[in-house]
C-alpha cells in the first residue's frame, strides 16, 4: 500500500471543501425568495460575528431560519449517506451496495408511519411532538439494523452474502408492511408519508437536533475511519486479511453498526434519498483512488456537495413549489450510475 501523506489528504479535502463552500453560497443565494449576494454576505458576516440579532429583515430571517438550516441538513445527510455507502461497499465487498440495501430506510418508514398514526393520540408537549416522527424513524432504523445483523450471521459472524440477502428480503417485507399500513389506516394521516419516502429536506428541526446529528455523524465516521486501514486490507479478501492480523469479525461488526447508524440518522430526518451513497463513493474512487483513508473523507465532502446541489435544484426548478429531493438524485443518479457501470465493463 502506498503511504499516505498528510499533505495529499489535506490537499484533496481542501479542494473539495472549497467546492462545497461555493456550492453552499449558491444554495443560499438561490431559492423561492430572491436574495442579493451583498445582503447574503452582510447577513453571513453578522452571523459569523455572533451578531445574528442584527438581522431583522424578513429575507434575513428566511435565510437564517429556513435556507441555512436546510443547507446544513443537506450537508450532514449527504455526508452520512456517502460515508455509509463507502463503508457498505467495502464491508460487503460489493460495489452495488448502497446505504439502503439492508432495508434500513423501509424500517424507518414503517415506524414513521406508525408514529404518524399514534402521535395524535398521545398528548406530548409540542417540542417533543415535532420530533416524534423522526425519533420513531430512528428507532425503526435501529431495530432493522439489529434484526438484519442477526439474519446475516453465520456461525457466529457476519457473512457478506447472507447479510446482503437478509437485508434485501427484510426491506421487501417492510415495504409491504408500509403499503399495508397505508391502505388500511385512514388515508389522510399517512398522506405525507409518500412525500417523506421520496426523500425530503424541507422538514424544519429545532437547533438541538442539528447538534445531535453532527455529533452522531462525527462519532460514527470517526469509528469507521479508525478501521480505514483494515477496510483496505479486507478488500483483498477475508482470508488474506485474517492472515495479515486483521480482526475481521470486529471490523465487520464495528463498521456495520457505525454505517447503519449513519444511514438511520440520515433517513430519520430526510426519508430515503437514493443514489447518493451509491454514486458518490464510485466517483471519488475514480478520482482519488480506493484507499479508504482518503476515500472516506473525500466521499463525505462529495456526498455533502451532491446533496446540497440536488436540494438546491429541488427548491428552484419548480419554484415556488418543490420537488422531492429524492426524485432529483434518482433522475441524475441512475443514468450516471449506468454510465459508470458501462465504462467499467468497457
Amino acid at each position, binding site marked *: 500500500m502506498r503511504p499516505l501523506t498528510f499533505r495529499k489528504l489535506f490537499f484533496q479535502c481542501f479542494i473539495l471543501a472549497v467546492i462545497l463552500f461555493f456550492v453552499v453560497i449558491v444554495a443560499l443565494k438561490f431559492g*423561492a425568495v430572491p436574495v442579493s449576494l451583498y445582503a447574503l454576505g452582510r447577513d453571513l458576516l453578522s452571523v459569523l460575528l455572533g451578531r445574528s440579532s442584527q438581522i431583522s429583515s424578513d429575507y434575513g430571517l428566511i435565510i437564517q431560519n429556513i435556507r441555512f438550516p436546510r443547507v446544513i441538513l443537506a450537508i450532514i445527510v449527504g455526508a452520512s449517506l456517502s460515508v455509509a455507502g463507502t463503508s457498505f461497499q467495502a464491508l460487503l465487498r460489493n460495489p452495488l451496495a448502497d446505504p439502503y440495501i439492508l432495508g434500513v430506510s423501509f424500517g424507518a418508514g414503517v415506524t414513521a408511519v406508525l408514529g404518524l398514526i399514534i402521535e395524535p393520540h398521545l398528548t406530548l408537549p409540542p417540542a417533543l411532538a415535532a420530533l416524534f416522527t423522526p425519533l420513531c424513524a430512528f428507532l425503526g432504523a435501529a431495530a432493522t439494523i439489529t434484526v438484519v445483523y442477526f439474519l446475516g450471521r453465520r456461525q457466529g459472524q457476519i457473512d457478506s452474502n447472507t447479510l446482503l440477502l437478509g437485508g434485501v428480503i427484510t426491506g421487501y417485507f417492510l415495504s409491504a408492511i408500509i403499503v399495508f399500513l397505508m391502505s388500511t389506516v385512514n388515508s389522510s394521516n399517512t398522506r*405525507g408519508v409518500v*412525500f417523506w419516502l421520496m426523500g425530503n429536506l424541507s422538514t424544519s428541526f429545532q437547533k438541538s437536533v442539528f447538534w445531535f446529528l453532527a455529533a452522531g455523524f462525527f462519532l460514527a465516521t470517526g469509528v469507521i475511519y479508525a478501521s480505514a486501514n483494515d477496510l483496505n486490507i479486507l478488500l483483498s479478501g477475508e482470508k488474506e486479511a485474517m492472515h495479515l492480523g486483521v480482526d475481521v469479525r470486529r471490523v465487520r461488526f464495528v463498521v456495520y453498526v457505525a454505517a447503519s447508524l449513519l444511514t438511520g440518522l440520515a433517513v430519520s430526518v430526510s426519508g430515503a434519498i437514493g443514489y447518493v451513497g451509491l454514486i458518490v463513493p464510485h466517483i471519488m474512487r475514480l478520482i482519488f483512488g480506493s484507499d479508504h483513508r482518503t476515500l472516506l473523507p473525500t466521499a463525505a465532502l462529495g456526498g455533502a456537495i451532491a446533496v446540497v446541489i440536488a436540494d438546491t435544484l429541488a427548491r428552484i426548478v419548480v419554484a415556488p*413549489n418543490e420537488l422531492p429531493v429524492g426524485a432529483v438524485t434518482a433522475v441524475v443518479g441512475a443514468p450516471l450510475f449506468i454510465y459508470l457501470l458501462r465504462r467499467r465493463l468497457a
Partner: protein
Amino acid sequence: MLLPRLHPAAFAVLVVFSCAAAPSHAQSGTHSSAEPPTFREVVDETGRSIRIPQPVRRIVSLAPSLTETLYALGLQDRLVGDTDQCDYPADAQKKTKVGGGINPSVEVIASLHPDLVLVTKSYNRPDTVHSLEELGIASYATDPHTIADIISSVKTLAHVLDLPDAGASVAEDMQHRLDDLQRRLGDLPPKRVLFVVWTQPLISTGQHTFLADALRHAGAVSIVNSSQDWPQVNLEEVAKLQPDFLVFAESHSGDASREVEKLATLPAWKIVHAVRDRRYAVISDAVNRPAPRIVSAIEELARQLHPDAFTEKSGDTKRKTEKENPPSRSLAFAPVPWNQPHLSHGHTSVTGGCLCGR
C-alpha cells in the same frame, strides 16, 4: 385564471343548461320504454355516454362526496353499497362496504347488482370504471372543479336519477346560502390564507381545485398560486407572502391547535406570523368533499375569518344561522381561538393592499 364567482346570472345559466338537458333524458326515456328492459342514454361529466337501466333502484357510491349527495337528495334507500371512507352521515357507515374508493372490490360491487355505480373522476381510478364496464355495470362519473360545478353536478345527477325536484331544492338551498354569505361578506377584502393539507413537507392546494374555489366563497384567497392540485410548497414562499391565516381541515392528523403549537417550536415556521400569533382556522372535513355539505364548511370558514361580518348583524339573523347548522357542527368551530377582530382586521387591510396588485 380566476374562476367566476357564483352569482344569480351564473345560476340562471345553470338552470337553462339543466332544463336543456332534461328533455333529452325524457325523450330517450320514453323512446326506450317501448321495449323492456328500458335504458336511458346520458352523457356523464367526463363526456362518456352511458346507458342506464331504468328505473334506477340500486345504487353503489364509490366516493364519500357522492354518498353525501345521495343522502342530501333523499335517496339513501336506493344506496345499497358505499366505500370505507363514506362516514357521513352516520347511517352511511352501516351500508355494505365495497372497499376503499381507490381500490374497491369489483366482486362485491357486482354481487350487489347495482343499476348504477357513481364515481368521481378526481377520486376513483379509471381502471375501476373499465372493470365495471366489462361486467356490464353502468357507471356515472362526476367531475366538479368549482363550487358552481358542484351545484350543477348535484342537479344533473338528480335529473339522471329522475328526481329533478329534489336536485333543484338542494341546489337552491346551496345557492341561497352562498348568496347570503356573499351579501354578508360584501366587499370585505379577502383574507390571504394558506390551506394546509400536510405540514412536513408542506402540501397545500392548487388554484384549479374546488377547494381553492371554496376558499374564495368564504372570503379568503389562497397565497399558493400553483396549477398542480396538491403542490409541495416552499416555506420560504410562505414566509415571504405571510398569510393572514392558516386553514386546516379537521381530518388533518390530530388536533389543529396542537399542530400549530408544534410548528411554533420549529425555526422555519416561527417566522411565519400566522404561526407566531396563532392565527388559524379549523373547518369541517366537508371542505374536502365536493358535496352539498361543503357550503357549511364555507360558512364555518367565513365566520372564523370575518367574525365582524357576522356579529354586527342583529340577533335574529344569528339565531337563524344557528338553526341552519346543527349543534355538532357549531361545536366544531366553537373552541377555535381566532385573533382579536380589530387586530387581525388591521393586519389584513395592510396586506390586503398588496393583494390587489397580485
